């Protein structure tokens, strides 16, 4: 066997245009696919999010399905009924007259949890100064531990917020579950989900502080 036979013939270098064509073409095809998928799914995704929000508002205000509720936009330092033209990123709040005659407000708020942002909605009666219900809309808390704050059920963390006293000056307090009875504004935190529980309490308090003046000043005023 000669030495020359052992050396493989070097392949000719790939021309630069070919590298560019493959990557450019591949990128263009990938971009096209992504845009098509985006356009095809944006409407169903948006519709689903709106539905989740509507269900959430009715749930935390204890309204029957398909019951009407109203929406207000925070614009220019007050609540307005019409979304101002061209404004895309305004905060919203919802309210409805509840079966018992009181006016309940539904607030969406978010903040940092243990793993990621927690987004929740809660119902609030500012006149009576108490929470109506709470529901976690999005969370990525640790499965088996922190995600207990998003659990449903009669003994769940979210159920503990129903009826809890809250106002701008008396925030909700998260306390360790023990034998001592809770004050009206205290909520038992979940063992194993302490950070996530506190985060939920903090988000609620922040939202109450942020919305209380606006709600009190509004024409609906809660009455």
């Amino acid at each position: 066997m000669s030495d020359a036979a052992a050396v493989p013939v070097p392949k000719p270098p790939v021309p630069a245009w070919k590298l560019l064509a493959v990557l450019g073409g591949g990128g263009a095809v990938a971009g096209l696919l992504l845009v098509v998928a985006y356009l095809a799914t944006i409407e169903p995704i948006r519709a689903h999010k709106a539905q989740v929000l509507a269900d959430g508002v009715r749930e935390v205000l204890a309204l029957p399905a398909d019951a009407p509720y109203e929406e207000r936009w925070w614009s220019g330092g007050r609540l307005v009924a019409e979304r101002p033209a061209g404004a895309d990123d305004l905060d919203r709040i919802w309210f409805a007259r509840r079966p018992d005659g009181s006016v309940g407000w539904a607030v969406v708020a978010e903040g940092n949890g243990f793993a990621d942002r927690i987004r929740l909605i809660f119902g609030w009666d500012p006149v009576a100064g108490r929470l109506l219900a709470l529901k976690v809309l999005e969370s990525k808390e640790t499965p088996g531990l922190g995600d207990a704050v998003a659990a449903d059920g009669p003994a769940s963390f979210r159920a503990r917020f129903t009826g809890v006293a809250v106002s701008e000056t008396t925030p909700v307090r998260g306390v360790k579950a023990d034998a001592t009875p809770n004050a009206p504004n205290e909520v038992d935190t979940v063992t194993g989900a302490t950070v996530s529980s506190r985060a939920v309490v903090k988000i609620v308090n922040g939202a109450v502080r942020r919305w209380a003046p606006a709600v009190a000043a509004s024409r609906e005023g809660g009455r």
Partner: protein
Amino acid sequence: MSATTPRQDFLRGVWRENPVLVQTLGMCPTLAVTNTVANCVAMGLATTLVLVFSCVLVAWWKKRIPNEVRITAFVLIIATFVTVADMLIEGLSPTVHRALGPFIALIVVNCIILARQEAFAAKNPVGRAALDALGSGFGFTIALFLMGVVREGLGAGTLLGVRVMPAAFQPWGVMMMPPGGFLTLAMVLLVVRTLERRKAERRRAAAGAPGSAKEAA
């Protein structure tokens, strides 16, 4: 590479070259999402899907992708596929998306996929690449499932959310947290490697040929 049967192509990734248990690849999802069995199965199946589709694509186009830019092309294929799948799942089934949400993006950086593309799909025909990817995907799912059974069983006393431990069992909270992932991985690897070693020893004893070369590996 010696001739292999389709069966061997498939089974290689399932056990003998299991991506997690033997090659210790894909550690990020193995440690991060194995704290419940449901998460494991979802992550395993989602990864298998991406693995199969992207390996088929690479095997199909391997002649058109120059060697010099193959990594960029492979990653582009994976990332595009995962993003499109993410959008479609969110559009078609928000419930599934809610359950898988945080994990789907993780699939892009799963090195098992790039490894199978590099090591197998880029050199073999489409059919064999698909079988190999399917085998590796199942192997990955099986490994995650083993981890999930141990972690959920000990960490919460449940399997797929159903209580399996006696009422007196005090859940080991640590198994649900990141350290539990490391502990469980070590335990699972220890058991699997011990079983494999015993099997190899028995085989050698039966053949009557004490081969020591493979012992070190």
